Structures are given as C-alpha cells and as structure tokens.
C-alpha cells in the first residue's frame, strides 16, 4: 500500500471534511444501535421486567449466567450451528463460484443461484420442514421408495445440522456471488503463468486462487459469521429450541428469557456476552482483512 501520494497527504487531517460525510450514519448508529446497546449494558446489571423500574443488582445476572447450564448449552449449540453453517456454506460457495467462473457465463444460472435468497427465512424454514418431515416429507418418501431406512432430521442430534443446512440452502448463492466477484478480480496473467508451469486445476486453485481470494473471503466471513451467530427465524418456526435444548441458540434463549419469562435484565446480560464474543471475533477478522489488503493491491 506504499502509495507516495497517500503518504504525503497524511500531513493534514480530513476530519472536518469527513464530518458531513459520516455524520448522518453516525447519528443513525448512535440513536438506533449504540444508545440502545449501552442501555442494554446498563440493564444487564439490573433486575427488570419492563413493567416496573429496573432495580440495580450489580453482577448478579453475570454470576447467574456463569452458573447457568442453559447459557453454556446455548454457547455450544450456537457454535455448533455456526461451524456447520459457515463451514459448509463457505466451502460450497467457493466451489460454486469457481464452477461458475470456469464453466459458465450464464446470468440465468447466477440468477437461479441467488433465487433462494429472495424468500424469507420463515418461508424457507416451513418448506424444508415439510420436505424433511419423517412421515410425509418428500425426502423420506424417496428413501422409503428405494427401501432405504428413513432419516429423522429433527432428533436431538440431527436437528441443529438440519437447520444449519437449510440456511446454507438459502444463503449459499448470495455468498457464492460475493466470492465470484472476488474471483473476477484475479488477473489473468497469474493463471497464464500457472498454465505455463503446467499446474493442474487443483494446484492452481490452491496456490493461486485461494491465496488471492483471502481478503474477499475474510470480508465474506465477517458478514456471514456475525449473521450466523444470531440465527433465530428458522429455529423459531421449526424446533423452537428443542428437543431438550438441542437447538436453543443465543437468540432463541434471549427471546425466551426476555419475552417469555419477562427477565429483561438477565436477557440483556446474555446479549452482552454475545456482543462481546462477536466483537472479538469481528475484530480478529477485520485485522486479518486489513493485513491481507496488500495481497491484491495493484
């Protein structure tokens, strides 16, 4: 990034110029995210049921949280979801992006790939809930037709992976197109050189495509990981957190604690824990992102 012009410009600060540019966004951020967020942090130190004034109780919510097996369960369950969802989604999206780059220029196919993203989470969840039903779902009917044992998609073991895969179906096209964009930016000369060297498909992918794609992948990961941690809709319309807490992710737990049990203070504490965790992950990812900025610098 050693641009001499930029280096020279560093002498004077653009802060006053920047103010009108970022002002509206900062107002929006403060009023609708930061202030409610800070209020949430305050509420996490109180006992609060929204109908009575919050009562300050110090760290009680946090000590309760640390001792609460349901909280730790939510952590593991959410991690399980994120790992399966992001892992498969990213690999598959990368695969689709490479396929599209190598084999087709058809915008129709790109449109089809994006199609699931046009339907809301709730609709997608309902359609798949039906398709995966043990008794009258199409998938099990097909298995049954071929005399293969039917599969229970929503047992305490399989429910979370099933939900993670349903969301892969909805989001993979979107992710693939973002990655595809990154692929298009890789200069052709690099591939030419690889071809001269006689590199095969796999080696070209591993030693050229993947490294050059890292900044794009990092950006995509920040977006998808922070979204994935907040999984809510799909579970709310299917398993609602069951069986036996198997799909009770952070958002489901927060919603239950706040609206179901009227414990807004405790729900705030769980939210703060989630925010802190996600901020650390996002910080690490953005660091990774800027560290790799130079990989693709022209």
């Amino acid at each position: 990034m050693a641009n001499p012009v930029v280096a020279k410009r560093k002498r004077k600060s653009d802060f006053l110029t920047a103010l009108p540019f970022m002002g509206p966004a900062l107002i929006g951020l403060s009023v609708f995210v930061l202030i409610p967020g800070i209020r949430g942090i305050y509420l996490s130190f109180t006992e609060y049921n929204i109908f009575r004034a919050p009562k300050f109780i110090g760290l009680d919510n946090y000590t309760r949280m640390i001792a609460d097996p349901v909280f730790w369960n939510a952590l593991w369950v959410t991690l399980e979801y994120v790992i399966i969802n992001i892992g498969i989604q990213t690999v598959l999206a990368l695969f689709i992006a490479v396929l599209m780059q190598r084999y087709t220029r058809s915008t129709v196919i790109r449109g089809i790939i994006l199609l699931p993203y046009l339907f809301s989470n709730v609709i997608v969840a309902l359609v798949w809930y039906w398709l995966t039903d043990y008794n009258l779902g199409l998938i099990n009917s097909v298995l049954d037709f071929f005399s293969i044992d039917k599969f229970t998609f929503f047992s305490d073991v399989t429910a979370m992976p099933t939900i993670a895969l349903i969301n892969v179906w909805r989001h993979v096209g979107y992710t693939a197109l973002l990655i595809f964009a990154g692929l298009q930016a890789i200069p052709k000369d690099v591939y030419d050189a690889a071809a001269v060297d006689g590199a095969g498909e796999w080696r070209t992918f591993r030693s050229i495509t993947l490294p050059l794609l890292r900044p794009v992948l990092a950006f995509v990961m920040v977006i998808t990981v922070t979204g994935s941690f907040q999984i809510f809709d799909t579970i709310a319309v299917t398993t609602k957190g069951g069986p036996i807490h198997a799909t009770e992710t952070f958002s489901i737990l927060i919603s239950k604690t706040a609206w179901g049990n009227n414990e807004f203070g405790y729900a705030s504490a769980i939210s703060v824990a989630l925010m802190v965790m996600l901020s650390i992950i996002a910080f690490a990812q953005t660091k990774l992102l800027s560290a790799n900025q130079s990989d693709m610098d022209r």
Partner: protein
Amino acid sequence: MHNFTAVGVREAGSWLETENIKQRKKMKVFKRAVAIAAVLALPLGLSACAPAAPAAEGTISYGLWDSNQLPAYKQCAADFHKANPKITVNIEQVGWDDYWKKVNAGFVSGDGYDVFTSHLAFYPEFVNNGNILALDDYIKRDNVDVANTYQPGLASLWTSPDGKQYGLPKDFDTIALFYNKKLTDAAGVDMSNLDWNPTDGGTYEKAIAHLTVDKNGKRGDEAGFDKAHVKTYGIWMEGTGGGDGQTQWSFLAAANGWKVNDGPWDTNYHYDDPKFQETIKWWHSLSEKGYMPTFAQQNGVGWSDQLAAGKVAMASNGSWMTGSVFGAKSDKFEPALAPTPVGPTGKRASMYNGLADNISASSKNPEAAWQWVKYLGSAACQDVVAAAAVVFPAIPEATDKAVAAMQAKGVDVSAFSVHITDKTTFLFPIADKKSKINDIMNPAMEAVMSGKADVSSLTAANDAVKALFK
C-alpha cells in the same frame, strides 16, 4: 345430548337453578329486544336496573387470533355498533405466535388493544404485571350475573387468587379423539367406548395397536410386526405437552386419578405422583412399540395434516380443531370423533379450557371497552358465534345452538360435549410463573419422551417447579 348443558345445570343445585331460570328469562327478553329494536337491546337486557352508566363513546380496538372466528366477531361488532352507535369497534386479527408479541408490545408501549382475546396460559402474568383491568366494579354496577350465566366453572377460571374477576367467559373447549373412519372401518375397530389403564392400556391400546400398520401390511398386534418401518401409526404424538399435556396426556392422567395441583393458583405440583409417572411411562411405551411416532419423528408437519394424509389413524386434540380437521375430508380421509377413553377412575376426563376477553389497563376508553366486553359475554353475541359453528360459546343455550349448528354441518361433536353432560371436566391448570414452569417441564418431558431419561426423572423436575415458589 342436544340438551346436555341444561342437564348439567339442572343438577347443580336448586338455588342455582332458580337463578339460572331468572337469567334465561332475562336473556329471552333480551333477545326479543334485539330482534325488535336493536337500539334498545343493551340497556334493556343487561343493565336495565343499574345506576346510569357514564355514557361511553369513541373507538376501541379489539384483538383476536383465530381467523375462523373473525366473521362471527365482525358481525358482533356491527350489531354492537348498531346498539351503541357512539362506540365503534375495530377488530384486528393476528395469527397465534405474532398475536402474543403484539399484545406484549402493546402493554409496553401503552397503546395496544383496548380489549383482546386472552388465554389462561398467559393471563396470570398479565394480572401480576398489572396489565389488565379487574372487572368487578363494572360487573357490580351493571348487575352482570357472572356466576350463573355461563357453563359451570368457566367464570372461576378468570378469577384471580384474591377473588377479582378479569374476564367474562366467551367460549370453552374440551378434548376428544379425532380419527380417520376409513382406517378404523378397514381394521374393524369400534372407537365408541374405549377404556384405558396404565398397565396394559386396555381397549384403547388394543385399538391403537390394531390400527398401526407396517409397510408389509402387518398390524401392530400381529406377529412379525416391523416397528422400525411403520406406514400408518395408531396414534399421533403432538409434542410432549410440557407441564399441561392439554391434548396429549392430561385426559389419561386425570382418568387415572391424578391432579396437576390442588386447584387453580395452587403451587403444590404433583409431577412426582406415581399416577402421573405411570401414565407417561405407558404413553412413551407406545413409541417404543412403534404404535406412535417417536419424539424425533413427530417433529415436522402438524398432526392434523398427518391425520389427513392417512399417516396416522387417530389423534387426541381439542374442539377448536374441529373445523379444520373436518374440512380436510378427502377420498383418503373420513374424519370422525370419539370420546376419550374411560380410565381406572371409572370415568372419562377432559381438560376444560376457556377463553375470555381482557381489558388492557392502559386502555384510554375503559368504559367503552367494558361495554364491548359485556356484549361479547352476552347471549346476543354468543348466539352469533354459535351460528358460525366454530367453537362452543360459554352461555349454555348458545352452546346448544353451536352443537346444533355443527350437527347441521354434519359434524357430530358429542364426543366433546359428553364431558359437560357427564361432568368429567377438570380445569386448565392456571398458575403463576407459567413460562418458567414450562422452561422446566418442556425439556424434562422431551427427555422422557425421547427415551433419554426415565419417568422417575420427573420427580426432580417437580422439585424444580416447586422451588420456583419458595
């Protein structure tokens, strides 16, 4: 059975009877009044002898969740507006899940519905949080005979522990067995008078076993039945029922002589009672035998669609589902109803749940809201609801009319009403901290029904529930 309500009331003691006749006379006058001059109806019928109520006017909002009932209540609102031209009711219908979000948001913001259809599972918390108005002053002022107007017991469901009345009953529901007559006929099973016990399941289990068919066509009670490859289940499991088991197991446990606690608002729970645990043990055994889907297998499309698809022969559920189940009639599915089985107590049992309308504490027009609530609880509106043949209204005569209206539609609902005639109902467990109880009981029951824990683990769950009230 046409007159089951009258029988029920007549047996309820003589002083009650006279009160009831009085009430009916009042109602008759009332109805005639509606017919002749709608404008005069309300003052004549219900508040004729009350001190002049402050004139109510304005627009109020009313919320309900069941779209099947929307046309009837729209009619009620139109009639009400005719009788009270100064009051306009805006009805908003929102599906079940979103409905409660909306009601809660309304409490927080203070501009929710003035009047809303309420449920026994939620109203105790509304009372605790001061979200809804007690109606006692209005009831007294307008001389509304809450004790005798409705089916026995319903009004008491809406009474808080300190004796305040929060709602006027609007309808009620009981439990019966929905089944596919095509399948029972083919199996030669008679559903009309089943009995049950927790040891061998009685004729109830025999029927369930015989109705279960594996993919080779072998029935559940035949040698060589393959429980791993069931094509049609004898009975459906609709979740675990949590701490209530309203449609799942409460009718069995109660017929086994069990009570969840010692009455409304009581905090002494009995999930540790062997009578409860043996009932659940038997219920889970149906899954193990392959007569009922396992907990994991039932997750997915709802029970009524499974029944209509012929994947299951019967399912226990509530009277509010009658319309949609009977609407799904096809060449595969011939819907029919049977009463729940007679248990070791020698009687059937059914949970008795009733809805009522609550007034938001934040309503800016409580007087108009009350006039509307009173109208909803009156025969004028409940007769309209009865004619729609969707639910059973709470006023006995209106109940009869609803039964007749359903009969006219070709649906025999005596399996539901038999519980009123025979007085075999028990009340929906109203409790404080309901959602916390569910937080304990749902996973505990899921563990048992998934075969991950023995029924004895429910004793620990019971201790946890009791600990909530210490």
